[in-house]
């Protein structure tokens, strides 16, 4: 709207201006339906996430990465001049708040698309809201397989652009089985946080470890509480049972404390430690002493895949936010990349059309195992992302010799896993 025209506006147009201003301000609870101003109407994308409390990094890195991609898209002209407007709200990690925030973003703030950067319980809540309101939702932080694997939860307009627990378990199990054969690691013990993610992930890993190497034996399990500060009794137990290898899916601050505390007990001397979430910059920059024999899967590493695309993306992120990107960052960046690609492919911003375009869509991406990422058509989940396991050191490139996972292997075993779970 040309400012010169403001004085000369006839009243209906003026009301229109005020209405749009009111709905944009978001203060009006009597939201008038947002009336389209044709070309320049922004594409509103809502992002419920966690910006406070223990997991605040999740929201911060998700929001940063998403914003970076959105700005790139807008700078290159957007969609026929229309720019994406990303609205990020804090659910404080409470699922009912996540549901409320998601609803508000759609019904009051005019968001036609949701990028859900909630952790698993919040993601289920937002999933129901999206189902209820019929909006497109891309989950970017939930790794719980059932979100997309369970046919009861599937909807045509929900997608997951994030790694999946079972994929990590297959690759991790294969790698660990190999190392176990090489180093004759027969006695294993697990130490994972006692909640759904911890239990499911550990069980899946153990399953595939045994599948690839029949000689391993699980001699004990420890289940510390999530966000438990003190691990001394767990470490003492690990020392008593004295396994040859330890597996853990502890993450973030918990993993850092666990490693720090284990070091002063000299827990890892003579043992191999398989920690699926260790190759994460938040952990690697905080752990003061990376023990020998620490193996991990890559959450996000700028050195894997070792391509200019990946290193450039990481440098841009660091330049903008003065921080290293985390696992959540790449997942959200990829989601926005998918979204923009789908909008261009569908030539529309209608949720249904975008959803159809997303199904089976492959895009070029710095995070792909072979330069490409795909949203699988049958269950709407992300595949072909770069997965690798390797031994860690205390400084860049942290994982010197990554062993990439095979997607052929994953696809086969995942199909069989789904059948067993009754998901197929």
């Amino acid at each position, binding site marked *: 709207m040309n400012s010169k025209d403001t004085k000369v506006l006839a009243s209906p147009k003026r009301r229109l201006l005020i209405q749009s201003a009111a709905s944009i301000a978001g203060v009006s609870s009597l939201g008038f339906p947002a009336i389209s101003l044709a070309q320049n109407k922004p594409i509103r994308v809502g992002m419920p996430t966690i*910006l*406070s*409390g*223990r997991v*605040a*990094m999740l929201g*911060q890195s998700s929001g940063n990465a998403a914003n970076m991609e959105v700005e790139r898209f807008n700078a290159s002209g957007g969609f026929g001049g229309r720019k994406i407007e990303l609205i990020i709200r804090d659910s404080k990690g409470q699922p009912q708040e996540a549901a409320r925030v998601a609803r508000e973003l759609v019904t009051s703030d005019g968001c036609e698309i949701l990028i859900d950067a909630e952790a698993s319980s919040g993601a289920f809540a937002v999933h129901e809201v999206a189902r209820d309101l019929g909006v497109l939702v891309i989950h970017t932080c939930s790794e719980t397989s059932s979100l997309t694997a369970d046919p009861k939860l599937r909807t045509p307009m929900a997608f997951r652009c994030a790694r999946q627990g079972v994929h990590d378990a297959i690759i991790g199990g294969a790698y660990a089985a190999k190392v176990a054969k090489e180093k004759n690691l027969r006695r294993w013990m697990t130490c994972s946080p*006692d909640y759904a993610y911890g239990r499911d992930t550990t069980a899946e890993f153990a399953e595939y470890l045994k599948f690839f190497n029949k000689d391993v034996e699980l001699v004990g*399990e*420890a*289940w*510390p*509480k999530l*966000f*438990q*500060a*003190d691990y*001394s*009794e*767990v470490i*003492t*137990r690990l*020392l008593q049972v004295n396994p040859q290898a330890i597996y853990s899916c502890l993450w*973030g*601050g*918990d993993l*850092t*404390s666990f490693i*720090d*505390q284990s*070091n*002063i*007990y*000299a827990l890892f001397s003579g043992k191999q430690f398989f920690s699926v979430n260790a190759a994460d910059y*938040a952990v690697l920059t*905080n*752990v*003061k*002493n990376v023990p020998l024999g620490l193996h991990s899967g890559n959450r996000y590493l700028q050195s894997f895949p070792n391509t200019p695309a990946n290193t450039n993306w990481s440098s841009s992120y660091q330049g903008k936010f003065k921080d290293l990107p985390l696992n959540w960052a790449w997942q959200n960046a990829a989601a926005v990349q998918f979204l923009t690609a789908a909008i261009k492919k569908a030539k529309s911003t209608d949720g249904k059309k975008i959803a159809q375009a997303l199904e089976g869509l492959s895009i070029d991406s710095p995070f792909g195992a072979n330069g490409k990422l795909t949203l699988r058509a049958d269950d709407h989940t992300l595949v072909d992302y770069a997965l690798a396991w390797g031994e860690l050191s205390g400084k860049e490139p942290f994982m010197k010799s990554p062993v990439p996972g095979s997607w052929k292997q994953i696809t086969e075993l995942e199909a069989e896993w789904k059948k067993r779970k009754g998901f197929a």
Partner: protein
Amino acid sequence: MGTGLIVGSLLFLVAAGLTLIFGVLGVVNFAHGTFYMLGAYLALTAYRLTGNFAMAVLAAGIGVGLFGFLFERFLMRRVYKADVLMQLLVCYAVVLIMDDVVKIVWGAEFLSMGMPESFQAPPFFIAGGVVPVFYVYLIAAAMLIALALWGILTFSRMGKIIRAAAQNPTMTSALGINTSLIYAAVFAFGGVLAGLAGGLAAPVRSMSPGMGFSILIESFIVTVIGGMGSVSGALVGALLIGLIRSFGTIGFPLFVEGLMFLAMVLILILRPNGLLGKESRA
């Protein structure tokens, strides 16, 4: 068994402050977890600046002591006469505010201090168990502080006045003793203890906004079990909780939390004044 001592000694320091504040002022300091959190963060910064762990812990204790003093002077003092719910409201407001202040000052991501060089020696082997050097110092430090606390409360004039105020506040003020100074001192004490605990634990913890939550709940359990107002009760309670934790992971991995609350329930039903508690305050 030894691990119970580690958790227990830190918990004791925090709970001692909580129980002291309740004993003397009749106030449940719901912001006590925030005191602990501040201690940890202050120690982190002090360590980064000085490179000396002892200085860091001291800085934490003094810093939080000061915070406790200010908290009492400007906030809690206004709601002594109001009922417990208003006090809860004030404390909770401070918790919310400080969680965000910490987020603003130190950032949202978790931070870790790392083990000071002097403690990086290989662990001791005592009685067939592994005991890291750091924990020996930690327990020793906690016991020393406990001893100092006992000494102050038993022998010093301030300590005697505090105990008198805990027993009989009206009489104490009738004797012309400045109770408002006492109250400020007690809150400061509680702050010092919680701050020292936060500082001592810092090398083996990850700091993040909101980390005060869990130790607050555990301190409640300890003070209830030990007896609200009894410092020796807090010691017994803390060691008990430490014990439950160390056995809990072996026996009932899923239900350690539940066990602790069960203990709390049992004490409240069978012996509401706690194991070593005195008469409940009116």
